């Protein structure tokens, strides 16, 4: 009865901060997920095409360098065009430039299509717990 959900990880755009996504990827694997680890500097298009190919259930995107908004301008439209209506989208890291109140920027990223938006420097486990909850709610786990 229980399926193994497929999760895509990686940093978006030109972001090189790879450590967080490496930590998350391994933690996901250790929690029993199938992980497609794209590493750093993944284009939005690559996230979308890999999601199509692998029938992924979620993308856990990271961006630390502050330019996520620029990188993700057309992402939501494209993923909808690609028929990825049902995929869970999470993003975490340092999402804008400078010190910010995570609550304030959440709506921006929700509007870009993300289901969950995380503040800087959280534990990978927090995201994984949310993921399990969300996947279960959608009957995907």
């Amino acid at each position, binding site marked *: 009865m229980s399926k193994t959900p497929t999760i895509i990880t990686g940093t978006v755009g030109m972001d090189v901060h790879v450590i967080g996504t490496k930590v998350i990827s391994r933690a996901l694997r250790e929690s029993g997920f199938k992980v497609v680890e794209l590493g750093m500097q993944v284009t939005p298009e690559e996230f979308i095409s890999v999601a199509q190919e692998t029938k992924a259930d979620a993308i856990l995107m990271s961006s630390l360098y*502050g330019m996520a908004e620029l990188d993700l301008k057309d992402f939501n439209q494209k993923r909808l065009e690609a028929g990825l209506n049902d995929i869970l989208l999470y993003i975490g890291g*340092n999402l804008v430039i400078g010190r910010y109140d995570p609550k304030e920027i959440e709506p921006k990223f929700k509007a870009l299509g993300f289901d969950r938006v995380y503040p800087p420097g959280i534990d990978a486990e927090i995201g994984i717990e949310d993921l399990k909850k969300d996947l279960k709610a959608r009957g995907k786990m």
Partner: protein
Amino acid sequence: MKKMRIVNKRLDDDLLMKKRREVLDKWPTGKEVDFEEAAAYQKSLPDSKVWWKVMAKLREEGRMSVFPRAGTPVLEKMIELCQGLRESGVLLIPVTTDSYTRLGQFEKVQGILDECNKTGKALLNGYPIINQGVKQTRKLVESVDAAFSPRGVSSEICIASGLTTYECGLEFITWAAYSKKMTIRELVEKWQNETRVAGWYADRGVILCTDLHGWLPTAPFPLSVNIVTLILQALTAAEQGLKAIYPLVHCMGNMTQDMAWIRLTPKLIREYLDKFGYKDCQIIGCCPAQTPLFPNPMDMGGAFAYLCYIAMVGSLCKCNATDLRSIDEAAGVPTKDTNTVSYSAARWIFNVIREQNIDFHIKGIEEEEKITRMEVEAIINRILDLGDGDVIDGLIKAVEGGVMDSPWSPNITVKDKVLGVRDAHGACRYLEFGNLPFSNQLKEWHRGKIAEREKIEGKKADYHTAVRDLWSFSKGKIVGLPPYDK
């Protein structure tokens, strides 16, 4: 098919001239550079804007400056930011470039820069020095009485603009921390050209100084591999004619170890420079750097303490500069105000402690030096073996074979078979050695140190220990004792 052997040899100057123009032609502002005029402009700069002279003066007078990080796209804002730094006593000012500039995406930058200029907003995470070009950037240099250093980009636009360091030599950081697919061969080729440019200026009496950053240990990890790369950077830069360098020393937070590394690194570089005959390349200082993860954005007290710790270590070690982040490091690109308050804390320590000229000794520092020296020598000897005496040829083979390695690299050509953890006193030790060419005796020494921690924690150190250690600084806990209340 056998690849061509690349060796540590000065480039041909005719070839250089052709390549120089090619690089500059990548973006219109390159036209603003006239080589001879650039050299003349550099020569016209007052001593206070010439990096190596500022550092030499600081060393002579027994004082130090912060070497911060700062970059914002709009010129006027950048000038303001740098003036603020200068007011906080910073004499060495970085021009941190944005990520797109570092990757050569000037077209993209231009669109965003135009919008920044229109709206006054900082949409780029640094100063796009190529798109700004020489004329604009000279305004920056001329508005602030300090020496400037480009960060993350190596272009003659920087030199022509009056920035007096040049990022060149084997910039391992570019390769190992910033790129996904670049091979070590590509790195070597790219950077030999760049270094020769600086050499060309040196031949004309313009000494551009270079800070050696080495292979960035992005996590708690012993510095020996990093120090090897510093030595290789020095040797290859000197071969291309560079005359002034100084190492950044990545402090990991164990005071004994940090101080040992600060003492040992310039010493080792000097020894190797001399041994290979580069006696006229001077080491003009030593700059401890704040490397591990910063305290969590909300822990301002911890951020100040960490900053003051490094300032203190630099002061006690009588360095002439310290590479410091602001208290907002974990939160985002700092503002003028957070820079000011951060660097005035550092300046207080510099003025009060550095100027006491303290002569101290820490027990155990000799052992740390000895171990690191053994490790560095083991790796360099293996490199020389592999390269038949040539450091570059040997280096390429060493990296390809994992004889040089570092964890958490985004670069897929890096072996990533090594791992570091902290020991019972927070010093960094090798948990996994990969193919590092260390004797069993050395390996046992590390294992013994880690065992002490395992005893305290009552469990074996493993990958998860290494992950937890990413945060040991940011959580203000360098291993050791369990919490008081428990």
